[in-house]
């Protein structure tokens, strides 16, 4: 210990952090991340916050600029209780997919934790956000912060203008359709269409300048004719069936007023923004975990952090990637950190030190020694489902002792369909991959008809796969919400695929 304390190369000695030490650590981490790993990141902005502020950020999707809604308060109430009673800790960090990338460090962290978090969030997640095809195509990192700012202001203005209850009714209803409010196959338009936002601003301004108290008792200003025509033209272009319920409602609902359409649109845009994150949990966390693990070890190898620090790091790293077994009381599904990290470490091993089995399974990368390129390619071009299908190796399946289970609700037994042996590897792998296919998880609900000229009934179909029908408990509640937005009857039929 005394030897290491004297090492001039150490970035920090004390467990407490200060801004100078953060800066030294950041520079050293950046050197490894860019120079050694060759990551490609958005500029970083790192903000230090207190634990209360972390709780705040937590409950509104981790976004710094979320509009106000009671459901965030509900999550806050629960998170706060769990935190204060010690049932759960707080995340060490939150990172936002924006340009510049914003990462939050909690002030209670030790210096080693801050270094870990910077490596994890500011380089791992940041690289993933910037390079993964889903994020590149489907989200707009440049526009998100200004869009959220717009949304927040717009919604609070609506609350002033039309009342909290009115706004809440629309948001509640729209929130219930967030899972059905994304485009899965065609690319959504950019958020920051400057001209459209300018149009909204101009309209608000116009309403303000023409404000006349006498007219306040009249119904809200109707949609201008030109916009209505434009919207109806868009409706005609929608080809049924349409999977994006929120989009369809926003455009075609016969009862929504312009500001209500805008609210639906805001919720839809936010759902769309988070959609890639739902599809890349394993990869995103795996990437960040792999990067922080590599960087922290490199720092240690270069003599820049002490033995004490690396021990502290390993302790928290191993709790992050801990995977309880299925019969453990702590088990709650597969830990995306554990799976992602294990797979990426294994890719590195396959490239550097392949076993004969690996040469058979991964002929093009085994022994190629270019794990940096292989990983970067994977991070850029896959999502969880395809990544697992492509890269889950027998070694990882064996290490985690994975087994596949078939469960038919009609049957009184479950069946083990495959285990981690030569006969079962491929089946386990494709079943695990399908577990990460959102198309399988989230009910596939489509608009099949809306008689806009006639009785305006909105017809929805749920395409049932493998007999998995909708839960009755929530179905009616959601349908009620849809009726709020649609204003006329809504029917939902469940059809076998």
């Amino acid at each position, binding site marked *: 210990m005394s030897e290491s304390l004297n090492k001039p190369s150490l970035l920090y000695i004390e467990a407490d952090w200060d801004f100078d030490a953060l*800066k030294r650590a950041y520079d050293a981490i950046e050197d490894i991340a860019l120079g050694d790993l060759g990551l490609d990141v958005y500029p970083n902005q790192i903000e230090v*916050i207190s634990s209360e*502020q972390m709780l705040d950020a937590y409950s509104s999707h981790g976004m710094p600029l979320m509009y106000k809604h009671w459901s965030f*308060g509900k999550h806050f109430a629960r998170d706060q209780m769990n935190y204060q009673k010690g049932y759960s800790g707080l995340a060490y960090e939150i990172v936002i997919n924006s340009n510049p990338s914003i990462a939050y460090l909690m002030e209670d962290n030790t210096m080693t934790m801050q270094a870990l978090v910077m490596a994890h969030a500011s380089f791992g997640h940041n690289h993933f956000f910037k390079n993964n095809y889903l994020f590149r195509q489907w989200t707009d990192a440049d526009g998100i912060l200004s869009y959220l700012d717009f949304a927040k202001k717009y919604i609070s203005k609506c609350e002033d203008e039309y009342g909290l209850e009115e706004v809440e009714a629309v948001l509640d209803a729209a929130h219930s359709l967030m899972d059905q409010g994304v485009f899965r196959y065609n690319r959504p338009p950019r958020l920051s269409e400057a001209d459209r936002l300018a149009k909204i601003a101009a309209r608000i301004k116009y309403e303000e300048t023409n404000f006349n108290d006498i007219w306040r008792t009249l119904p809200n200003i109707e949609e201008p004719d030109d916009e209505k025509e434009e919207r109806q033209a868009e409706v005609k272009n929608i080809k049924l069936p349409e999977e994006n319920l929120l989009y369809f409602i926003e455009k075609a609902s016969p009862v929504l007023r312009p500001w209500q359409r805008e609210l639906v649109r805001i919720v839809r845009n936010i759902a769309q923004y988070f959609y890639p994150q739902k599809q890349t949990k394993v990869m995103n966390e795996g990437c960040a975990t792999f990067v922080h693990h590599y960087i922290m070890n490199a720092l240690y190898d270069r003599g820049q952090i002490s033995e004490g620090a690396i021990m502290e790091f390993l302790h928290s790293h191993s709790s992050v990637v801990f995977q309880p077994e299925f019969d*453990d*009381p702590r088990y709650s*599904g597969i830990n995306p950190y554990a799976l992602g990290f294990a797979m990426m470490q294994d890719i590195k091993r396959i490239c550097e030190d392949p076993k004969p089995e690996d040469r058979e399974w991964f002929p093009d990368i085994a022994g190629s020694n270019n794990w940096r390129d292989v990983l970067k390619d994977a991070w850029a071009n896959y999502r969880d489902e395809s990544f697992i299908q492509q890269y889950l190796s027998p070694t990882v399946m064996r290490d985690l002792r994975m087994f596949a289970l078939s469960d038919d609700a009609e049957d*009184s037994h479950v069946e083990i369909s495959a285990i981690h*042996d030569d006969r079962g590897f491929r089946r386990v792998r494709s079943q695990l991959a399908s577990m990460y296919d959102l198309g399988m998880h989230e009910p596939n609900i489509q608009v099949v008809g809306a008689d806009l000229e006639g009785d305006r009934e909105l017809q929805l179909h749920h395409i049932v796969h493998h007999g998995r029908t909708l839960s009755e408990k*929530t179905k009616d509640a959601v349908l009620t919400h849809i009726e709020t937005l649609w204003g006329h009857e809504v029917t939902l039929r469940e059809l076998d695929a």
Partner: protein
Amino acid sequence: MNAFHFIDRRKNPKGKSLGNRQRFLKRARAQIKEAVNKSLRDRSMKEIDKGEKISIPSKSTAEPRFVHDREAGEREMVHPGNKEFSAGDRIKKPPKGAGRGKGKEASDGGEGEDAFQFTLTQDEFLDIFFEDLELPNLIKRSLKEIKAYTLKRAGITVAGSPTNMNLIRTMRNAHGRRLALRRPSTREMNELKERLFELERIAQPDESEIAEKKAILAKLEEMEQRRRWTPFIDPLDLRFNAYEQTPMETTAAVMFCLMDVSGSMGEREKDLAKRFYMLLYLFLKRRYERVEVVFIRHTHHAEEVDEETFFYSRQSGGTVVSTALEKMLEVQKDRFPAHEWNIYVAQASDGFTQSGDAKRCVEMLNESVMPISQYYAYIEILDERELEVFADADSGAELWRAYRALAPQWENFAQTRIARPQDIFPVFRELFAKNAKEAA
């Protein structure tokens, strides 16, 4: 790497979610209130105002989404940690509902029927509890009829008692005046006097010396005169510190709980009384910095006891209500002087007392108790069947009828009847309703 990459946000306002939290509480208000009222029943009086973990049914705050029914269809899963399974094994499913682990997988909005659990802060808890409740004329009473005073500095005046003289101000004024009126200083005069002595000591003074002597004498004469009409300190210079009597708000309250514990008061009656006292305690706690509670129980004689004994031990004997009032006055004189304490009295009884005693009670209340009390509440605990009989406010047990005479005279006196737990809250509200007239 530049320094601006790091931003210290710790000083930024926290509690960004507070607004959202309030929206949530507002939305779930009705259910939260019910949960709060329910939780009151299991608490001891003094710990009642802690923060409270409550669960509410998540009906009104559900965030429903379309989800698959977990009990239908086929699904394939992969789990880690295989120990003994091989392909083709069949395992019996656990009975429905007992499946461990699966429950946790349920996502955010799915669990429609579950209770939602969270912690209310102390303030939120009590605010909900005391929603639109207020003691009658509370503001008037606690701000107008103030009984204690304190002296406060109120600047400088030109008149006052010598003890309050502000020396610095006075001397400064005197000094300025002396300079302005050119009062000759003592030093100057002493110098002249010394010179005069020197001149007088000369045996045979010459012309010039005699002239000088004369001049000095004249000068001294003039100086003396000048000093006479510019005194060292003039009444004009005097300044005094001014004090004003400022009314002091009494921030401490004492609450006397009087209860009949004779045989006629059973567990049920005591339990009802306890709830009423709890409410009163909470209410006072909310408004005063310090609240003391004195428990006085009585049969045919009264004694001060602790909470446990008060509510849970039994005693037999007759019933003489006035002994409790005597005891209360004794304790009050001893430890709670009326000018320092706001005095609240809550009396619970089944309404029976020795014949003739009711009259004595009324006398005591009129003469000694009511004048010093902020509020006196009498609650009569009835059998549920009796409630019908006594629906008319004028009929009732002896004490009730006797007390009826007090209400018109004393605005801060209230009496009411309780038969069931659910009566307490409305009755409490009525007693302390914003508009006390309605209750009377």
